[in-house]
């Protein structure tokens, strides 16, 4: 119950950050979406044993978060939540891929451990970037940008409704679970009870969807969600896209971490 409430709280925070007004907020959402997509694709394109060369990519989410006034604690907490899932994906790599690559002191490090670490690093980077994008742009603007970039209108509308009614649904679920907990007398509720609660929640959501549709029709809805916002893809946006994407390309083909390492090794013989 507390966890459902905290989900809602977390979502509200995300929306609050999006309402601030900084250099990053003022950029056309399409520019931010394009750069973030490029970031995700390039980070994903690395070889599966890459770890060190990925590190410099952290500059993108961090730079944006700093410029956009996003608290480091919030970002760290939410990205940390995703790490267990990423580790789950890479969990079996150390067991199957036992080839020893190098020794850390006396500890042998296998290729499996490296690929597992690589998955975790990629997850942190891409999720961090996506979170920063939504927090500094706002979910509805991201939807509008995706639509502007060619995503079918139906999907954009669905995502927008998902965002709007997630708050209503989460409140509804929190009330139901609270009512359930209050009448459970401290025992864990039976699976059948939970199932029927979820079923009712689904039916209520369904009914609500019908009422919303009626309300939309009553206001002359004809299949298109018009946006009031008019964004301009100006010089700043072009510079933003070209600048970041070129940096990503450079980081993709030149291993900055290794270059730095060789440099340091050369200076300190």
């Amino acid at each position, binding site marked *: 119950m507390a966890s459902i409430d905290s989900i809602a709280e977390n979502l509200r925070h995300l929306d609050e950050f999006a309402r601030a007004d900084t250099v990053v907020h003022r950029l056309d959402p399409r520019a931010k979406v394009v750069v973030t997509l490029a970031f995700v694709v390039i980070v994903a394109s690395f070889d599966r044993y890459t770890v060190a060369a990925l590190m410099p990519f952290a500059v993108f989410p961090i730079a944006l978060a700093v410029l956009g006034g996003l608290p480091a604690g919030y970002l760290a907490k939410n990205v940390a939540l995703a790490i267990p899932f990423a580790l789950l994906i890479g969990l079996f790599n150390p067991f199957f891929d036992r080839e020893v690559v190098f020794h850390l002191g006396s500890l042998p490090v296998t290729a499996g451990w490296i690929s597992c670490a690589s998955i975790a690093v990629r997850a942190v980077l891409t999720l961090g970037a996506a979170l920063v994008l939504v927090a500094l742009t706002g979910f509805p603007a991201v939807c509008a940008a995706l639509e502007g970039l060619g995503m079918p209108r139906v999907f954009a509308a669905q995502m927008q409704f998902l965002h709007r009614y997630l708050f209503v649904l989460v409140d509804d679920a929190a009330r139901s679970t609270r009512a359930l907990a209050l009448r459970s007398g401290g025992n864990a509720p039976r699976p059948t009870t939970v199932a029927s609660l979820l079923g009712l929640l689904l039916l209520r959501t369904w009914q609500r969807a019908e009422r919303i549709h009626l309300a939309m029709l*009553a206001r002359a809805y004809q299949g298109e969600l018009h946006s009031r916002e008019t964004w301009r893809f100006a010089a700043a946006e072009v510079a933003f896209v070209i600048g970041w994407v070129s940096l990503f390309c450079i980081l993709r083909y030149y291993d900055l971490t290794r270059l730095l390492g060789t440099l340091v090794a050369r200076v300190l013989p």
Partner: protein
Amino acid sequence: MSHHLVELRSVSHVYPDGSVALRDVSIRVTHGECVAIIGANGAGKSTLLLHLNGCLAASSGEVRVGDFPLTRKTLTQVRRTVGMVFQNPDDQLFMPTVLDDVAFGPLNLGLPQADAEQRSRAALERVGAWHLRDKPPYLLSGGEKKRVAIATVLSMAPDILVMDEPTSGLDPVARRQLMALVSEFQHTRILASHDLDMVLALCERTVVLHEGRVAADGASRDIFRDDALLARCRLEKPLAMQGCPVCGVVRLLPRSGAA
């Protein structure tokens, strides 16, 4: 020749599960009237309201808005003429911000951006909610949501306002504010409500529904004096017409019209 006219001619409605919600209902509401639809739970109030802008189609009978019968062809025109404020504002406010929501209707009507914004601003100022324009709907209080929901309809410049339970869930002050707002409108107004004191204060005329039929249609004051009718339809006198529990004196009826 008036757009402000609403007429139901022998309307019946049967739901797909076979339950009959309206039986042979005939009502005629003319320009500038403020009419209340009252009745017990399940008497057919909400079903009746949903017929007024074509959200539901009559199983038999005819609905006329302005000078046109409500058909598939006239649906768009009718929905522009009849502004419907739903009971639960959360169903009505579905856009990311208040201003987006109020501009939703005008933009759907094909108005240019600037006109839509100007109309939205006027509507929000009318209900005293312009300062809320950039807020997302879920951060509004109940009273604010209700007022914004009314603005979303006003921005479409309807001739007829239909409201389902406009005062439900409001605190006493928010309820009074909403009543003052509704009483100032020049539109033809049709309100469905259980708030009988609001009905008495705002509506000169009341239609009583009972089990899907019109049980009475007349001056609100006369209807609320008919004890037998009220009892039969699971209603009661508005509190303003009942004795004071402390001193036993019946308050004078509120202003408007002859007592």
